C-alpha cells in the first residue's frame, strides 16, 4: 500500500486491493458507446496484481477523455447551429423589414409623398394624413363576441355618422367577425364620434392618404395611389421621386395647365355628349418645347374613389390606344412629298375622277370632288385618290422613312407608363401600303403620335419628344429635323386653307387663325372596315401665322345627331370642339384673338377652284 501511494492519482486503492477488474472493464465497455473509434485493448482479467490493474484504468481514463472530447465537439457544433440560426434570422429581419424612413422630427413633418402641381403651382395631388376605419374582431382579446353592443346596434350608430354606408351590409360585415377596412377615409371629427361609440373593435389607424382636390381633372395624367404605390399616371412614372425623403417637401410641377385642362375636358365631354360618342381624347401640345398643356381621355375616373367602375376607365386613349387616324395623315403625306421634291409645283394637278384600282383593292373618294385636283384642293376636300397618287410618286420607301422619322414606328415619347405600340408594318412596304397610309389607313398610332407629328409639321420641321414635366425656359430638347423650314411654312398655309375654305371650317374661330385637318376613319371590325363606326379626329394648330400649340380632338364612334346635322364625320363633330376650345384656351396660353393677323394665302388662293374667295 505504501508503494501505491506514490502511484498516479487515478489508481484507486480499491482496485489495488484486488477487486475483479473484469467488472470494471465490463462497465467501461457498456457505458461508453461513443468510444467506437478506439478499439479497447482489454486485458484478460487473470492477473490481479497492482501493476496489472492499472492498464484498464489508463484505458478508462483515455476513453472517458475521448468520449468527453467527442461530445464537446457536438456541443460546439450545437452552438454553431444556434449562431447560424440567429444570423439567418437577423438577415431575414434586415431584408424583410420595411426600411425605416423617418428618423427625425424634421422628417416626420414632411409630407409622406411629394405634391403634384400644374405648371402654375395649382395643386393637383396632395398628401395628407387621414384616418381609416378598421374592424378588428380580436381587439377584446377574449374568446367572447367581438362587439359589446352587438352588430346591429353598432352598424346603426356608424350609419348615423356616415350616412352613405349601408346599414344592412355593415351589420353583415360586423357579424361575420372578419377583420378588414370598413372605410378608408375618415375625417378627424368623425373619428372622434366613432371613438365615442366605445367599441374597441373599431380601430382608427392613421394612414397617409392622397387627395386630388380637382376631382376627375387630369385623372389620366395623374393616376392614383394605392398603399403607397402610384398607379397609371405620373404617380406611377414619378414614384421614386415622389416617395424620396430627400425631395418630398418639393412639389413636382407638371407641364399641364389646370385651366387649359379644364377647358379641354369641358369641351370634349360636351362634344361627346352632343353626338353620343362612346369616348373622347384630346391633347394640347406646345409645338416648340413638347410640353403637354392638357391631355384628356374621356370618360374620366375619380382618383379619389378608386372602385371597380373607376378601374375600368384607367386606360388612357391619348397615349395607349392606337387608331387608324384617317385623313389627318394627308397633310403629313403632302409634307413628305413637298420635302422630298415630289411636289415642286404646288399647282400641279392629279386626276380625281376615277377610283384607283390596285389589283382587287379600290381607292375612292366619299363623293365626286372634281375631274382633277391640285394638292391644296385635295387637302381641302380630303381626296383619297389624289393623296394616294402623291404617295405613289413618293414611293413606299420614302413614305415609310418619313413616317418613321415622325416617330410612328415606336411607342410615343412621354413619361407615362402606359404607351401603346403603333401598328407598324415592318419590312419593305408594297405600293398599296404607301397609298393607304397616305390617307391614314394601314398604320395605327396614338393621338399623341399625331400631335407630335403635327407639331413637327408646323413648328419649322423639328420633332421633339412630348413631356409632362414642366420645362424651364431654354430647357426644351434640341429635337431632330424632319421637314425643311420651307415645307413647314407651306404646310402652315395649307392647314390654314383647309380650315378657312375646306372641311375644317367648323374648327375655325374668329381671330385665332386655326389651321387643321379633319379625319374620319372607319373602325376595323369583324370582316373589314365598318362604314358607320367612325373615329372622328380634328388635328389643328394655332395661330397659323406663328404656330404655338397643336390641338387634337378625337371622338370614338360618334353618332349622327341633330347637333351634328345627322353627320358622323369629323367636320361635324370633332372640328367644332376645337372651334369652341381655342377661344377659351388661347388667352390663357398667351394667344390673343387678332383680326389683323393672318397667314398669307395670296399665292394659293388663285389655285383654288370654286369655293369662297
Amino acid at each position, binding site marked *: 500500500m505504501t508503494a501505491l501511494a506514490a502511484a498516479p492519482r487515478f489508481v484507486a486503492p480499491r482496485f489495488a486491493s484486488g477487486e475483479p477488474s473484469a467488472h470494471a472493464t465490463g462497465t467501461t465497455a457498456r457505458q461508453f458507446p461513443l468510444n467506437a473509434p478506439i478499439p479497447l485493448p482489454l486485458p484478460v482479467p487473470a492477473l490481479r496484481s497492482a501493476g496489472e490493474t492499472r492498464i484498464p484504468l489508463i484505458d478508462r481514463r483515455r476513453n472517458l*477523455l475521448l468520449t468527453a472530447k467527442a*461530445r464537446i465537439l457536438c456541443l460546439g457544433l450545437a452552438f454553431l447551429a444556434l449562431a447560424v440560426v440567429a444570423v439567418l434570422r437577423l438577415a431575414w429581419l434586415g431584408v424583410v423589414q420595411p426600411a425605416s424612413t423617418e428618423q427625425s422630427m424634421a422628417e416626420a413633418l414632411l409630407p409622406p409623398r411629394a405634391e403634384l402641381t400644374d405648371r402654375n403651382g395649382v395643386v393637383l395631388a396632395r398628401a395628407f394624413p387621414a384616418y381609416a376605419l378598421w374592424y378588428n374582431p380580436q381587439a377584446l382579446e377574449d374568446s367572447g363576441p367581438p362587439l359589446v353592443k352587438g352588430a346591429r346596434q353598432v352598424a346603426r350608430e356608424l350609419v348615423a355618422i356616415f350616412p352613405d354606408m349601408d346599414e344592412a351590409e355593415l351589420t353583415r360585415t360586423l357579424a361575420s367577425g372578419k377583420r378588414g377596412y370598413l372605410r378608408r377615409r375618415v375625417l378627424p371629427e368623425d373619428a372622434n364620434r366613432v371613438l365615442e361609440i366605445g367599441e374597441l373593435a373599431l380601430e382608427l389607424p392613421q394612414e397617409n392618404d392622397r387627395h386630388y382636390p380637382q376631382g376627375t381633372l387630369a385623372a389620366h395624367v395623374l393616376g392614383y395611389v394605392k398603399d403607397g404605390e402610384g398607379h397609371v399616371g405620373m404617380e406611377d412614372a414619378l414614384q421614386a421621386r415622389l416617395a424620396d425623403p430627400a425631395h418630398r417637401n418639393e412639389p413636382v410641377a407638371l407641364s399641364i395647365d389646370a385651366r387649359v385642362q379644364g377647358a379641354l375636358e369641358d369641351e370634349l365631354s360636351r362634344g361627346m355628349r352632343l353626338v353620343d360618342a362612346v369616348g373622347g381624347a384630346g391633347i394640347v401640345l406646345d409645338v416648340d418645347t413638347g410640353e403637354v398643356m392638357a391631355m384628356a381621355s374621356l370618360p374620366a375616373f375619380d382618383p379619389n374613389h378608386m372602385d371597380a367602375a373607376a378601374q375600368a376607365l384607367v386606360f388612357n386613349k391619348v397615349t395607349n390606344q392606337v387608331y387608324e387616324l384617317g385623313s389627318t395623315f394627308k397633310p403629313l403625306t403632302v409634307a413628305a412629298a413637298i420635302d422630298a421634291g415630289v411636289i415642286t409645283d404646288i399647282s400641279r394637278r392629279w386626276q380625281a375622277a376615277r377610283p384607283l384600282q390596285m389589283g382587287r383593292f379600290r381607292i375612292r373618294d366619299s363623293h365626286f370632288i372634281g375631274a382633277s385636283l391640285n394638292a391644296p384642293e385635295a387637302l381641302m376636300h380630303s381626296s383619297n385618290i389624289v393623296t394616294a397618287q402623291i404617295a405613289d410618286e413618293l414611293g413606299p420607301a420614302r413614305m415609310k422613312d418619313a413616317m418613321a422619322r415622325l416617330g410612328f414606328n415606336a411607342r410615343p415619347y412621354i413619361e407615362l407608363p402606359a404607351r401603346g405600340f403603333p401598328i407598324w408594318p415592318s419590312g419593305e412596304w408594297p405600293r398599296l401600303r404607301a397609298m393607304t397610309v397616305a390617307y391614314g389607313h394601314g398604320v395605327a398610332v396614338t393621338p399623341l403620335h399625331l400631335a407630335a407629328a403635327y407639331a413637327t409639321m408646323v413648328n419649322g420641321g423639328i420633332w421633339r419628344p412630348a413631356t409632362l414635366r414642366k420645362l424651364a425656359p431654354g430647357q426644351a430638347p434640341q429635337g431632330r429635323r424632319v421637314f425643311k423650314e420651307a415645307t413647314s411654312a407651306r404646310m402652315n398655309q395649307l392647314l390654314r386653307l383647309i380650315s378657312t375654305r375646306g372641311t375644317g371650317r367648323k374648327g375655325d374661330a374668329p381671330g385665332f387663325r386655326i389651321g387643321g385637318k379633319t379625319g374620319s376613319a372607319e373602325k376595323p371590325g369583324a370582316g373589314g372596315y365598318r362604314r358607320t363606326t367612325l373615329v372622328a379626329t380634328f388635328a389643328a394648330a394655332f395661330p397659323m401665322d406663328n404656330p404655338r400649340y397643336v390641338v387634337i380632338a378625337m371622338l370614338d364612334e360618334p353618332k349622327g345627331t341633330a347637333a351634328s346635322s345627322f353627320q358622323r364625320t369629323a367636320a361635324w363633330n370633332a372640328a367644332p370642339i376645337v372651334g369652341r376650345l381655342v377661344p377659351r384656351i388661347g388667352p390663357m396660353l398667351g394667344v390673343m384673338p387678332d383680326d389683323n393677323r393672318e397667314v398669307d394665302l395670296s399665292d394659293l388662293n388663285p389655285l383654288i377652284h370654286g369655293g369662297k374667295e
Partner: protein
Amino acid sequence: MSAARPYVPRPGIRQAPTVQFPRTRRQRLRIWWQEIDRPLLAMVLALMALGALAVAAASPASARRLSGSEGTLPDLYFFYLHLQFQLLGLVVLIATSFLSLPLIRRGSIVLTGIMLLMLVLVPLIGSEVNGARRWLNLGIRFQPSEFLKPVFLITVAWVLSWRLRDPDLPVIGVSAGLLALVVGLLMLQPNLGDAILFTGAWFVLVLLAGLPLKRIGMLGGAGLAALIVAYLTYDNARHRIDSFLGGGTAYDQVDLARRTIMNGGWTGSGLWLGRRKMMLPEAHTDYIFSVIGEEFGLLVCAGVVLVYLAIVLRVVQRMIGEDNLFTLLSATGLIALFGGQAFINMLVNLQLFPSKGMTLPLVSYGGSSTIAQCFLVGLLLAITRRNPFVEREGLPGMEHQR
C-alpha cells in the same frame, strides 16, 4: 543531479522541497500572462466594452421609464452604475483568474454550500421584485443563484470526475440529487429561467461524463415532462409560452422588442438616436440586444452573435487538447452556462424563443449578474490556464500538430 537520491516516502520524513518556483509578484504575473488564454480574455474585454456602450444606449430609455412622481433619474443613471459594476467585475475577473486549480475546486465546493444555504434563506427573507423573490439583502442586495451557477457546476464536475477513481460510484445520481435540490429551491422563488439553465448545464456535464445514449433519451424525455409540468403549474411561464406560440398581442413585450430591433436597419440609427427603445420595458437588461439592433444596426447584432460563438468555440478548441477530466468538465460546464444564457437571450430578442427573464452575459446592466459573470469568466480563465511548454495528449492524430 545524479547525486540526489530518489525520494522514498517513509513515516515521519517529508519530501524535501526540490525546485523552488519563482514566487515574486512580477514573476507570477509573467507566468500568468504566459499561461492564460489571451484571445479569450481579449474577446471578453471587447464584449464588456460593447456592453458599456449598449447600456449607455439603453440607459435613457430605462431611466425615463422608471422616473415618476417620486423622483427622476438622470438619463445616464444606469450607465454610470454599470461602469462601477464593470470595474468591480474586472477586479473580480482578474483576481479569480489567478487562482490555482485545487483552490478553485475546494473554494467552489465551500461556496456551493454557502450559496445553497442562502438559497434556502431567499424564500424566507428575500426581497421581492416583479413578483419573484430572488434577492437577498445582506447590506448589499444580491442574487445568490447568480453566484451559485459557476461554483455549482464546478462542484458537479468534481463529483463527476470521481468516476476516474471508481467507475462504480453513482456520480450521475449524486449530481442529479444536487441538481434536484437546487432546482427545487429555485422554483420556490420562482425562477424557471435559472432552473432551466442549471439543468441544461448539468445535462451537458453528464453528457460529457459519458452518459449512455439510452439514458440521454430518457433524461431528455424527463426534461420535457418537467417543462410541461412547469407549464401547467407556473402561470408566468404559461403566459409567455402561450404568447410565443400564439403570436402574442400587439404592443406586448415581444412585439415591442421586435419593433425596436427592426427599426434600425442594417446600420442602425446611431447612438442615442433610437426611438423605439423608449417604449421598451427592460431595455437595459433583458432586451438590450434589441437596443443594440436599433442603435447600432443588425450588422453589429450579427457581430455580437459571432463574438459569443467565438468565445464558446475558443474554449471548445482548447478543451479538445485537454487531458485532465476535471478541467475539461468544469470549463465546458462554465462555457455551456455562459453561451447558453447568451444564446437564449439573443434568440428571445429575435423572437425565436419564448421570453425568459434572462440577461445577456457581460453586456446587460445588472449588479449581481455583471459581477457573477465576471466571476464565471475569471474561473474559466483560471481553469483553462495552461503551460504552453508542456505537451498534452489530445485527440488521436492531433499530436503531430504541436
